[in-house]
Every structure is written in C-alpha cells, then in structure tokens.
C-alpha cells in the first residue's frame, strides 16, 4: 500500500513538472500584460504536432525537435501578439479574452483540417529506470529534468539579464517603466513570445509519453489555469510549484476516489482558492 502511494506520488510529481512548465507561460503573460491567453492550449497542441512532424518525417530525436521548435514558437508568439493582442492591450479584458480565443479557433480550425481529430503519438522510449519499488519511465524523468532546466533558465533570464528585468519592470508598473524609457510594446511582445514558447515546449515534452490529438491542448489549458491560481497568477516561478501540487494531487486522489473524480476536486479547489485568496496560495509576484 505504502509502495503504491509512493509510486503514484512520484509519478504525479514528475508529470507536475511538465504541467508547471505549461502553466508558467500562461502565468507570465497574465503577470506582464493582464491578458488571459485562451490560445494557450492551441499553442500547446501546435507544439505537440511540431514535435511529431519533426520526429516522424525528419527522424529527429524528439528532444532535438523540441529544441528546434523553441525559436519558431517564440516567433509565432511575436506574430500572435502583433496581430491579435497589441491593438487591444488597453481595452477591457473581454476584448483580449475574445481575441486570444479567436486565435485558438483559427489554430484548432486549421489543425483539424490538416490533421483531423484522430489520435497521434510519438513512438519513442528511453527505457525504464528502477529505484527500489519505483519504476520510472525514462521519458518522464527526462521531461521533468528538461522542465527544471527551462525554469532555471527563465529565472536567470528574468532576474539576471536586462530584457528580463525590463519584463519584470513592465509587469510591476507599465507606465513607470515607460517613463524609464523601457520600450513597453517590445517588452510585451517578448513576454508573449516567451509565454508561447513555454507552452509549445511543454506540449513537445508531453508527446514523449502521452498520445495526443489537435484538441488535447484544451484539457492542459484548464489544468494550467488551476496551476496558475495555485501558484499565484502572474508568478511564473510559483507556477512550477503549483504544477507539482497538481501533479501530486493527480497521483494521490485516484487512490481514494475513482479517477473520474479528479477534475471535480481540481476545479472545486480552483474556484475555492480564487474566492478565498485570489492572488493564489503563494501570492502574485513576477
């Protein structure tokens, strides 16, 4: 029994790293520009299919494919920001919700036309690592490690480089940042690009252990909302912790309740946290 709990917990936490990575992008975008990015899930799906195409048709190692996708998704993020978000960045938030949702519809629409909604998978394995009672799939360990490395890189970028500091300044107070001659439009575009990139990377990592369809993104997007609220909306590094909490919950709840109750617990918790502490368990800080 104890072994089973331990196994589920570790399994959930490993998955939680990847969830956290996905939510980080959402949280960063919210923190910097107060936009809830409803195209997040669609972009994750794009990341999944990007990895799939590079792996299946060019025969690349999936991790190399994910690495190659990073700059492409950054550029895609700039494009989405320039076309859909920039014009309405100061409008009531309904506009940004609907604009990003429109992007979501376009991506999903084109994706459905090209790939249909059938199930795909990246047939890739790194064997299994055994440690005592635990049997851990290599791909999950690697994905968790990759998520940790990306988080560390994001942390260094935000706290140690000038563009990163500019992002934090704009998140803190856009008007004041502009007075300090920080080009806020470029900073916003950069944040949106990074948020998009994180979503695509998380999508790519997920393909190495779960099958997916073009519609899979929306489930992960909902999870990302829960994680963002757990970790503090607008606090990208808290998102990783939120991801771990959600992952652990997903590992542990099925021991006590049927698996299908997991979303009930997750989303009830989500609404409760919003009500009691809207800034999230860890508080909002960028």
């Amino acid at each position, binding site marked *: 029994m104890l072994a089973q709990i331990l196994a589920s917990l570790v399994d959930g936490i490993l998955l939680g790293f990847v969830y956290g990575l996905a939510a980080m992008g959402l949280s960063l975008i919210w923190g910097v520009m107060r936009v*809830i990015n409803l195209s997040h899930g669609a972009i994750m799906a794009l990341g999944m299919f990007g990895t799939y195409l590079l792996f299946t048709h060019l025969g690349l190692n999936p991790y190399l494919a994910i690495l190659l996708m990073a700059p492409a998704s950054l550029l895609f993020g700039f494009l989405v920001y320039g076309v859909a978000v920039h014009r*309405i960045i100061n409008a009531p938030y309904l506009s940004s*919700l*609907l604009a990003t949702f429109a*992007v979501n519809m376009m991506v999903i629409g084109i994706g*459905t036309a090209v790939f249909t909604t059938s199930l795909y998978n990246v047939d890739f394995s790194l064997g299994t690592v055994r440690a005592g009672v635990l049997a851990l799939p290599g791909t999950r360990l690697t994905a968790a490690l990759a998520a940790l490395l990306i988080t560390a890189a994001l942390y260094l970028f935000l706290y140690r480089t000038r563009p990163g500091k500019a992002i934090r300044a704009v998140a803190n107070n856009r008007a004041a940042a502009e007075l300090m001659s920080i080009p806020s439009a470029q900073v916003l575009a950069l944040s949106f690009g990074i948020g998009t990139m994180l979503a695509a990377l998380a999508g790519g990592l997920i393909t190495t252990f779960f099958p997916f369809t073009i519609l899979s993104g929306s489930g992960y997007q909902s999870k990302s909302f*829960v994680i963002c609220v757990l970790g503090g909306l607008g606090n990208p590094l808290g998102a990783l912790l939120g991801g771990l909490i959600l992952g652990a919950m997903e590992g542990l709840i099925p021991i006590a309740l049927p698996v*299908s109750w997991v979303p009930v617990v997750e989303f009830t918790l989500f*609404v409760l946290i919003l009500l009691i502490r809207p800034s999230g368990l860890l508080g909002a800080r960028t």
Partner: protein
Amino acid sequence: MKPWRQPGFWLPLLLVLVGGGVALVLRKDTLREMMFTLLMYVALASSLNILMGYTGYVNFGHIVFFGLGGYTGFYLISQHGWHLIPAALAGGLASALLAALLGLAVLRLRGAYFALATIGINEAARAFVNNFGPFGGPTGLFVNFAVYREYGGAPQALWLTYTLMVLTTLIVVGLSYWIKNSRFGLGLLAIREDEDAAMVMGVRAPTAKTLAYVVSAFFPGIIGTLFFFKNGNVEPGDAFRLQMSIEVLVMIMLGGNGTILGPVLGAAAYERLRGYLLTSPLFKSLHLAFAGLALLLIVLFIPAGLIGWLRRRFPFLRRWLE
C-alpha cells in the same frame, strides 16, 4: 414612456415573432429544426446579455445553467414522468437557485478573476455530472418513447417544444428591454461603468449583481430542458461545452454588447454563417478557422458590435435600435 410606443422595444420582439411564427404557420419540419436552433441561441445570447452586457461581468459559465437546468428538467421528465412545461420551469428554477448560491460567492470577484472562476465552475460542473449516478454518469439519460404519448405523439411533442421555445425567446427579449429601462437596470449599467462609484451613489451592487445573475441563469435552464427534450437524450459532453459558452459570447459581441437587438441579430447571423460554412464544400473543414477570423476582426475593429456601431455612426437610428 409606454414601451409599445418605442420601436426599440417592439422591433426585436417582432423579429423573433415573425421568424419563429413562419415555421408554426408553414408546419415544415426542416424549417422548425433550423429555427429551433436559431431561437435557442437568440434566447441564450439575450439572457447572457442581461449579466454581461448590463453589468460587464464576463461569464464563461453561462452554459452551466443550460446544462444543469437541462439535466434537472430532463431527469424529471424521463425518470418521474413530469409534463414538459412544469419540468422546464423546474429546470429554470434549479438554475436560478444555483446562480443565487454561486453568485453570493463568485460575484465578489471582479474582472478577469470572475471570468476565470466561471471557467472553473463550468469544468467542475461537467466533471461532477460525469460522476453523478442519478443523472446517468458519462452516458447520460434517455427519454422513453412512451413519454410522447402524453402529448399525442412525437410530432406534436416536438411542435409543443418549438412553441415553448418561441415563447421563451419572446419573454427573454421583452424582459431584457424592461430591465434595461428600469431603475434596477440603470443600477446595473452604473455597475458596468464603475462599480465603486455606483455603490457610493446608492446602488446596492451585491444584491443587484446577484439578481442579474439569477435572472440571466433562469432562462438557460428552461432552454436546456426544451433542447434536451427535443433531442431525446442528454449527456455531459453536450450539456457543458465551454465552446458553446464562448460562441454565445461571440454572438453578443457580433451584435453589440449591452443592446437588446444586438444579441438577437448577432445570434441569428452567427448561427446562419456557421450553417453556411458547415455545408459549403469549400469551407467545410475550415469553418472554425473562418469563425475565428471573423471574431478577431470584430474584436479588433468594431468592438461595439453591429448595433453599437450603427448607433454611433447614425444617431437618428438610436430610437429604433435599442
């Protein structure tokens, strides 16, 4: 002001009545099916507009009331043999009750936090119904064919459902005019512009918001019961589609947020456009992408929607286009 003297009042009602009445007069089944879907969206959009258009609170969970009210009504019909009319009212009341309970808690949140919470409520409700035994779990509920005997056969039952749909739509549209021009509605509009200022001026914001939420939730419950009764079955996937919530939002934006004619025209236009895109061979597989493009263009360039734009551009139309 007598409302029936105001074109802004009777124009939308007349549109619904004529549009809905044609199918009743001609007695054509295909026309009825088309108009049922269309009126359903008109009524859903108008009822959401009472909350979103007037108070400015964006609700992504409007479809929760459609789903839960529909489930309640359908459960009473299929398991307890209730007649459609009391069952639909019970569905509406169940939704209104849920909204009252939720509203007291969730409406304390403002702006995007409220929007996020409603997304969470939608997901939680779907997951809950998926697991809830009496509602049939993931497979949902079916109506026994014998139920139709009470109405004199299946065709009569469907026509009755359609007539009730037309009536419900008329009531929603009429009520949204009445609310907008009442003291209560002016309070809601004040909340939309500036909630703190409205409270300083004596608007009881928490009560008013909750009441608007309850009114806007009552109708989806009725519509849900009618819709699922017409379909003969209900399952969680159909009842709680976040997509549908957002489509209704799009319809309101298309026609004009906070107007009365706007949601009516927006819902009709969106529904027809989707029908066209789905059936045309060229756009069939890309219909979602085109709908997205249309939405993006509206949000970026005419955020006030069709009616809002016309009202601003041609002030003499304001008396007609409320």
